[in-house]
């Protein structure tokens, strides 16, 4: 940092102290984020056999294959379908549940802990339960749907399309909507009651009050929620891998699963790294939007 002439000694000392204080963060950040990132880009330029991690330099061959092949584009499509689908449901369920919980105090304290349950449950446990619910032979879901009369034959939930996609989207929504509930509920509680009363007097009904008072107040928190969850859903791995393993065939194979398969089933570490780098570039778009949004809010 250059010493500007109008800086006082004290200001220079503070500047030095500042550098000292952020140094540990920079070091750790470099070790855990920058190094793996560079390593992945480096690996993507080689044709590497995973078990030995040996291979030759191939330049941009992996990327050429990625762009010209069908696999990447198909997985990108699957990933976007999954992300948009599950995120939409998360936000709708999350906001609806938050509105409900915000209404009554008695209801709130009990329900709040119940609502958080899926979020805290380990993914493996959650998936085991859902696989049992979805099972086409003895699953509870088919049983109930047949009892009620919605279907008259058991449905193959995870083994056929579009049921498998609907299945993962539903489980994803169930697992992650509590995050939306908590964030939205916290914001809802800070909306002054007087605004609703003023709107009532101004002649706004319940729906108008939601759109004219509640929603504008939720806008900033929803932007952050949607961007964060979009990034997290985009790279979701364990939930999908455990539920469908990417199947049937590759119908639910998201980019994260594609990277895994390429690296550890097909043993093509270099190609996998190329997929990972491409995936990261897509996520970069979300991240730039997120940083823009959160950055401008403070000024």
């Amino acid at each position: 940092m250059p010493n500007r002439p109008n800086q006082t000694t004290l200001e220079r000392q503070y500047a030095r102290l500042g550098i000292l204080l952020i140094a540990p963060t920079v070091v750790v950040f470099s070790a855990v984020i920058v190094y793996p990132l560079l390593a992945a880009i480096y690996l993507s330029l080689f044709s590497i056999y995973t078990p030995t991690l040996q291979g030759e330099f191939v330049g941009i061959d992996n990327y050429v294959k990625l762009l010209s092949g069908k696999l990447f584009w198909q997985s990108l499509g699957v990933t976007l379908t999954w992300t948009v689908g599950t995120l939409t449901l998360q936000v709708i369920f999350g906001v609806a549940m938050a509105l409900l919980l915000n209404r009554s105090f008695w209801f709130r304290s009990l329900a709040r802990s119940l609502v958080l349950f899926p979020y805290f449950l380990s993914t493996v446990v959650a998936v085991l339960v859902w696989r049992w619910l979805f099972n086409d032979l003895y699953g509870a879901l088919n049983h109930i749907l047949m009892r009620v009369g919605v279907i008259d034959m058991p449905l193959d939930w995870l083994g056929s399309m579009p049921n498998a996609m609907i299945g993962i989207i539903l489980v994803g929504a169930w697992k992650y909507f509590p995050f939306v509930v908590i964030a939205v509920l916290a914001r809802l509680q800070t909306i002054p009651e007087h605004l609703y009363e003023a709107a009532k007097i101004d002649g706004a009904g319940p729906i108008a009050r939601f759109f004219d008072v509640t929603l504008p107040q939720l806008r900033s928190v929803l932007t952050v929620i949607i961007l964060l969850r979009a990034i997290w859903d985009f790279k979701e791995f364990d939930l999908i891998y455990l539920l469908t393993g990417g199947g049937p065939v590759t119908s639910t194979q998201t980019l994260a699963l594609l990277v895994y398969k390429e690296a550890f089933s097909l043993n093509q570490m270099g190609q996998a790294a190329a997929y990972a780098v491409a995936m990261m570039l897509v996520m970069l778009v979300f991240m730039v939007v997120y940083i823009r949004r959160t950055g401008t809010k403070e000024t």
Partner: protein
Amino acid sequence: MADIELRNVRKAFINFVALEDLNLRIEDGEFVALLGPSGCGKSTTLRMLAGLEFPTDGEIRIGGKVVNDVAPGKRDIAMVFQSYALYPHMTVAQNIAYPLKKRGVDKAERDRKVERAAALLHLEPLLSRKPKQLSGGQQQRVALGRALVREPEVFLLDEPLSNLDAKLRSYMRIELIELHRQLGKTMVYVTHDQLEAMTMAHRIAVMNGGKLQQFDTPDAIYNRPANLFVADFIGTPSMNLMEGSLSGSNFTVGGQSVTIDRSRLKPETTDGAAVLGVRPEDIMLGDGTIDAVVELVENTGHEKIVALAVKGCDRILARAPSGSAITVGEAVKIGFDQTKTHLFEKDGEGRRLNLDQDHNSLP
């Protein structure tokens, strides 16, 4: 036509009775202040008029129609909140236009009305700002604008000036009086500031502990307080209240007695324990029969407030011209202006014992 009537209104919350048997009749076009100490039920009364709270018992009529079960938006009322409650994401113009929009007024008409309201309240240069970019006084005017743009028959205002500084408050007081004069609509104004109530309202409803104490003109409230509470609550410094006993035309306090004009008392008044009330300006220093000692002199600039110790009662406050030479520790004789003393029951509700018309009959 929008007169307001509350008949035997009672309001009980889960664990608290906020209002008991409230009866109030407000004429069309009248400016009425609800005045009382904190927690006496002023806001509750106003919120029931607005439809934000519902009476447990009794009847509320606006313009002759029972509105107990009518939603706030369907009553012909507008309300200004103490916190203003402006919609933070809307501009000033959008805030003012909102009640019109919700009532399906078309855009051109809306714009015209917003413009007119803005002109009335000097808001034109602020129309495209957000509430956050306004000062307290400006926000308050926007809240007023949102209330009056719809031209409702009744305005309800809950301490609209309490967030403003003293100077702006006295300015807005005059603006509000002027606004009421122009619009000629019924206004109900909640305040705990007696100066606001006294200067603005045609009539004041003084409340305490969920009960109406007196409902009358500022002049009557000041000069003929209906009971001890009103006597004590209205006026700064407040009325001197001396416990003693009445016997014929004599009122005895702490062994000293003063003469009372018995003809100014209600005929049914009986001798015995009573409370004599005298306003600080009705105490004559150096002219009377009661012995007092000057304890403290407060010079406010245009007058002096003199605190006097009198045997047998609490400290007595008197007003004196700022030029008067009074020194602390001095012994003085004091007397009361015979035509302006007040007598109250000592027990029960502390009702006024003077004849009601006595001040009107003064020369």
